């Protein structure tokens, strides 16, 4: 009896010891992901999630010994700043996450910014593109782009290649205005000019009257920005129906109009169209080939990664880099020091870095042409604007 009891206590103490020792040995880093998983605006959110999930899956073995990662996903339901802010609060106060990432839509990220400052919570913005965002909190870094950053090189390229008189057509909301702005800066920088501009409603995608106006004016080139998705397909259709190509008007655009996930729906219409962008699934860099192969293996051969997917992937890469450098233990300020000095050459989109001063991304912008590869449309990169900074911040820094 006595022996048995001693034995029992021994086991109990050992078990208790094991329980107590376990959390000390294994560090769990909680990553809160807020993005749009449901509703009509979900596709980019889903794409982002696929990208970051794939990275986490393939690289869990690279984590420091004893460190595990827990991803907590929350759905902000679309453009809903109140919901996004609440989710951020909850992830911090209830789930005690160590870092937050994600967010497709700028208003959501902008509403979250003060929470990040108050809680000293590092936030890796994986899409929201409003230029002003990274100035709203010292705890934000962005791995996506700003519209000015993408469209300015397009303007420069157009001016240099004889398409120096352009008409711009953009969606009438903040990202559209940003794109219009960036393109204008770019084309004027190289001696071209914008001969006319029109802004089309975001909600009413019948583009015929607007493009007809452009056709009548016969500018050398036409710059278009519409949000990637069903609208871009609609825009390409209208462009085709009005025969703008035959009228001698060259279309130049951003990657949104020719987003990789939407290309298969456009038949052969966009063949030859030139666009600027941060990522194309057709890029031949070894890192990209490996990435696309892994993507097809995970999500099927017909699923094409787009630039939002790569932003999810790279965002997770940044977080994993942080975990590796700190062993999974970091405060908000320590994390920001590492995140803001992040630099890589191994991303599928090529080299990119975070500007330590602004927290914004500095990356290659590629000029691409739509071509047919193995019977499928693809954005083939043929010229690079290396390491482009966000022009908005440079302009506003100069103004100060």
């Amino acid at each position, binding site marked *: 009896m006595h022996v048995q009891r001693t034995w029992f206590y021994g086991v109990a103490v050992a078990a208790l010891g094991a329980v107590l020792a376990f959390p000390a040995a294994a560090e769990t880093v909680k990553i809160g992901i807020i993005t749009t998983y449901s509703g009509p605006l979900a596709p980019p959110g889903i794409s982002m999630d696929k990208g970051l999930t794939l990275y986490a899956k393939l690289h869990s073995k690279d984590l420091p010994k004893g460190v595990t990662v827990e991803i907590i996903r929350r759905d902000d*339901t679309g*453009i809903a700043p109140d919901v996004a*802010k609440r989710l951020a609060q909850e992830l911090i106060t209830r789930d005690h996450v160590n870092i937050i990432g994600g967010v497709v839509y700028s208003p959501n990220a902008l509403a979250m910014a003060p929470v990040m400052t108050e809680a000293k919570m590092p936030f890796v913005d994986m899409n929201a593109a409003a230029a*002003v965002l990274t100035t709203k909190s010292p705890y934000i870094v962005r791995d996506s782009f700003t519209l000015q950053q993408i469209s300015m090189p397009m303007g420069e390229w157009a001016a240099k290649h004889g398409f120096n008189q352009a008409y711009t057509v953009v969606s009438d909301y903040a990202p559209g205005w940003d794109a219009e702005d960036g393109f204008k800066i770019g084309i004027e920088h190289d001696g071209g000019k914008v001969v006319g501009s029109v802004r089309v409603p975001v909600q009413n995608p019948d583009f015929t009257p607007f493009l007809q106006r452009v056709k009548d004016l016969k500018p050398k080139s036409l710059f278009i920005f519409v949000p990637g998705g069903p609208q871009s397909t609609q825009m390409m259709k209208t462009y085709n129906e009005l025969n703008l190509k035959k009228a001698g008007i060259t279309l130049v655009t951003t990657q949104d109009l020719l987003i990789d996930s939407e290309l298969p729906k456009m038949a052969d219409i966009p063949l030859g169209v030139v666009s600027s962008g941060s990522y194309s699934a057709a890029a031949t860099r070894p890192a990209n080939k490996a990435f696309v192969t892994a993507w097809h293996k995970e999500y099927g051969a017909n699923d094409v990664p787009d630039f939002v997917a790569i932003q999810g992937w790279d965002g997770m890469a940044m977080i994993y880099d942080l975990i590796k450098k700190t062993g999974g233990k970091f405060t908000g300020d320590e994390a920001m020091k590492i995140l803001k000095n992040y630099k890589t050459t191994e991303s599928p989109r090529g080299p990119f870095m975070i500007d330590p001063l602004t927290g914004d991304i500095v990356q290659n912008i590629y000029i691409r042409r739509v071509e047919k590869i193995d019977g499928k449309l693809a954005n083939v990169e043929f010229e690079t604007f290396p390491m482009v900074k966000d022009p908005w911040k440079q302009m506003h820094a100069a103004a100060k």
Partner: protein
Amino acid sequence: MTAVAERVVASAAETFARRHRFRWYEALPWLVAVAGYFAFPDYLALGSQILATILFALSVDLVLGYGGIITLGQAAFFGAGAYTAGLLAAHGMGAPVIGLLIAAVAAALVGLISGVVVLRTHGLTQLMMTLMVAVMLHEAANKANTVTGGADGLQGMEVGPVFGLFHFDLYGNTAYFYCLAALFICWFVMRRIVHSPFGRSLTGIRENEARMHAIGSPVFRRRLVAYTISAAMAGVSGALVAQTTQFVATDALGFERSGNVLIMLLLGGIGRLYGAFIGVPLYMIAQDRFAAIDPVYWYFWIGLLLVLMVTFARGGVLGIVDRVGAVLRRRR
């Protein structure tokens, strides 16, 4: 008058007087709200959003449930209130309570002006008119980016502490009680309204407009007043969300907001004051829990819930309560 007639009149008067006496169950929502604060301290941010949305649903209940005005554009007033509170806070006037009052006035003005046009129409036309008002305001907010910040949302809101004492904190303590107090006051006012002769005449208009005309009730004016009050309440709700979020974007005026609140009200029960108090938490808590389990497909479960409610429980949750009550009474 004969004794019998006197007794009939007296008992009728008694019935009407009893109708607006407070009953024990009317304290339940408030007890639950206070208990919720202590029981779920981690859910206060969600809690304050639920409280603000209940107020929004109440405002819809006043026009739809009591006034019989079919609306798909209530977000117009929500947004008007939200932008008013937001603009005030962005221009150095961040005192929350004053902001709330001004937002109510601004939203009421929008309601009054649009009501003059909208309420001249009926049925489907009216529905489209309410929708149109919201869409127009939405586009105006999008275009006027120098004022509203356009689609990126209003920048630079700085909301001060409530009464100069209570800061809006990360955990949502202040926001919760702030929303609760605003909801309580609005509920009290609304309760007085629906039980007043004015409220009864609104119900009369809903049930039989021609008859109300015949007995000399100023139908248009009654409706306009109800519409304006409802707009003010929606404006307060919008201001609450704007102030506690410290951000406003064009989604405050979006169609989805008008649509979702109708669904929540349907779940709870329309035209019964407490439908909002049941439908809104039911919807929002279900959404929060389903979305936490499965962020991609939670809509399916919400949809299923809605289909079941519409098929088997006309009149929402309160409809079920009524029917159960009726069965029990018959047994007795």
